[in-house]
């Protein structure tokens, strides 16, 4: 029977020849992941089950959300997870100074690989679809059961075929692709479904672009956002993944519930206006929107290529006097590479704050919280009311091109306005 990429991964992990959309299956998991916000309650639920961890090599616990600890309660959360990781000899636990943002480091370290089935107690776990894995966010209890049994139940999702065509223009990146898609289909446009990317446009996208796109699949309600395994993916994982893996390809006659076409050559720089990621508008249609803060980082856009884009725009320029520009490399490796490239010099000379890797401001944790009435252009993933601080603050989601340009002009701007 013809299957999508999602169906093939779920079938393989359920020990079945084939599955179809709507079917309930119980699957073996290749990786179970949590962070310092979701890990501690998961550990508490796990202890109620009264079994050992299913496989310490297949568990990742990443202290990235409120760490380095922003307050005493957050330090307590980190401690619960650290103690658990030590006691259970968890393979993928990383301490401050070695850790980074979960969805940046797990692909970077080669922990996630093509064909894997992954759950994470973080909604942006869908990021790993970029490397041809089926990975999805779950809550505390699903995670606890995953830790104990190595299994989870799934309803096999219908798939939306996102067909990419055309050439990617200059100054456009994955963020513009995914925001444009969410603008088209809405924040529940793929509810209970998977997004599967197809078409010759896939080859136009760097792995960074794809990681950004898969990362925000959840912002369309999707369970996963899966890319095919092509030359670029093969080169990306060849340098990182040290164990055998089994990529999947969709069958030519796989069944999709709908098809959305995006012609990359028609894309323009866009932003998602407050307070939903579907409120997407071209930057050049906005008029003057003055801003107070820019954040460049996160699991969506905190990778080396994203920092390179920002450095290219900020080189020799200054952050607007009314703006605070906060730059957060997604991992220590990215931070170090940005130092080697002299991008950190560029950021500091321009008047930016450079932080250690953390989720920090994206979810209103710390390292850039907004006051009442303040506006932020951010390369993060959500612009819900109060997401980054005061309930009357505003977040505008954008690419690193737009974020860096806006930091210079003090208003939401296209990169062309400063380059």
């Amino acid at each position, binding site marked *: 029977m013809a299957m999508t990429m999602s169906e093939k991964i779920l079938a393989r992990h359920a020990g079945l020849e084939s599955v179809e959309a709507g079917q309930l299956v119980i699957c073996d998991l290749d990786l179970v992941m949590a962070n310092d916000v979701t890990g501690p309650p998961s550990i508490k639920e796990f202890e109620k089950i009264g079994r050992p961890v299913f496989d310490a090599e297949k568990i990742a616990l990443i202290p990235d959300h409120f760490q380095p600890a922003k307050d005493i309660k957050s330090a307590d959360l980190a401690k619960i997870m650290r103690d658990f990781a030590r006691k259970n000899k968890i393979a993928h636990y990383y301490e401050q100074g070695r850790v980074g943002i979960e969805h940046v480091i797990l692909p970077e370290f080669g922990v996630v690989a093509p064909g894997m089935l992954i759950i994470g107690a973080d909604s942006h776990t869908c990021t790993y679809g970029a490397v041809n894995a089926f990975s999805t966010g779950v809550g505390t*209890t699903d995670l606890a059961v995953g830790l104990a049994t190595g299994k989870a139940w799934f309803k096999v999702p219908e798939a939306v075929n996102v067909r990419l065509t055309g050439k990617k223009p200059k100054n456009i990146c994955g963020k513009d692709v995914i925001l444009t898609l969410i603008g088209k289909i809405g924040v529940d446009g793929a509810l209970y479904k998977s997004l599967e990317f197809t078409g010759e446009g896939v080859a136009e996208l760097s792995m960074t672009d794809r990681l950004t796109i898969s990362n925000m699949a959840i912002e369309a309600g999707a369970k996963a956002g899966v890319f095919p395994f092509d030359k670029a993916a093969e080169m990306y994982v060849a340098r990182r993944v040290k164990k055998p893996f089994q990529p999947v390809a969709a069958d030519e006659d796989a069944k999709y519930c709908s098809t959305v076409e995006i012609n990359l050559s028609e894309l323009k720089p866009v932003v998602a206006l407050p307070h939903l990621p579907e409120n997407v508008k071209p930057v050049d249609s906005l008029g003057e929107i003055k801003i107070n803060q820019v954040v460049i980082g996160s699991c969506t856009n905190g990778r080396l290529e994203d920092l390179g884009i920002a450095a290219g725009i900020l080189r020799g320029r200054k952050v607007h006097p009314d703006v605070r520009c906060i730059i957060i490399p997604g991992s220590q490796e990215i931070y170090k590479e940005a130092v080697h490239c002299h991008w950190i010099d560029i950021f500091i000379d321009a008047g930016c704050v450079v932080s250690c890797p953390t989720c920090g401001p994206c979810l209103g944790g710390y390292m850039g919280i907004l006051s009442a009435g303040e506006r932020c252009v951010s390369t993060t993933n959500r612009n*819900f009311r109060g997401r980054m601080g005061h309930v009357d603050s505003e977040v505008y989601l954008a690419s690193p091109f737009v974020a860096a340009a806006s930091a210079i002009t003090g208003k939401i701007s296209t990169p062309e306005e400063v380059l």
Partner: protein
Amino acid sequence: MKIEGKVWRYGDNIDTDVIIPARYLNTFDPAELAKHCMVDIDETFAANVKAGDVMVGGKNFGCGSSREHAPVAIKASGIPVVIAASFARIFYRNGINIGLPLLEIGDDVEKISADDVLRIDTSTGTIENLTTGDTFHAHPLPGFVQEIASAGGLINYIKTKK
């Protein structure tokens, strides 16, 4: 479970950041989370909610983060059931997993207003609006997902499967 309660009515796309803002996520104590439930869109909720009241939302209820703190905060507020046109996927799993019944009723949700009194039978999915006289039926849970809900959540269900 049979429930009769007053409605707290909210709109479409109620996200987990408004159900429980991240600034309160440095704890996972249910009673502490309940104190801040819905605060960013409804400052009156936490102080005035009564045990047995019912929460009703529009489409895509619980979108956003995977934080189970969100359904936990609602449940710890004394809300025994949430009704919506549709639920975001992770929130839906989390509700079932912690034993908070979630009833999906599509466009019928438009026939429920703030302060209406509903009589609900969660085992059959039947909802009577005692204020208007309307009756609705929620979509049933598929297969073993119903067994998880009936066990009172996933941890109880797993324990019975030992």
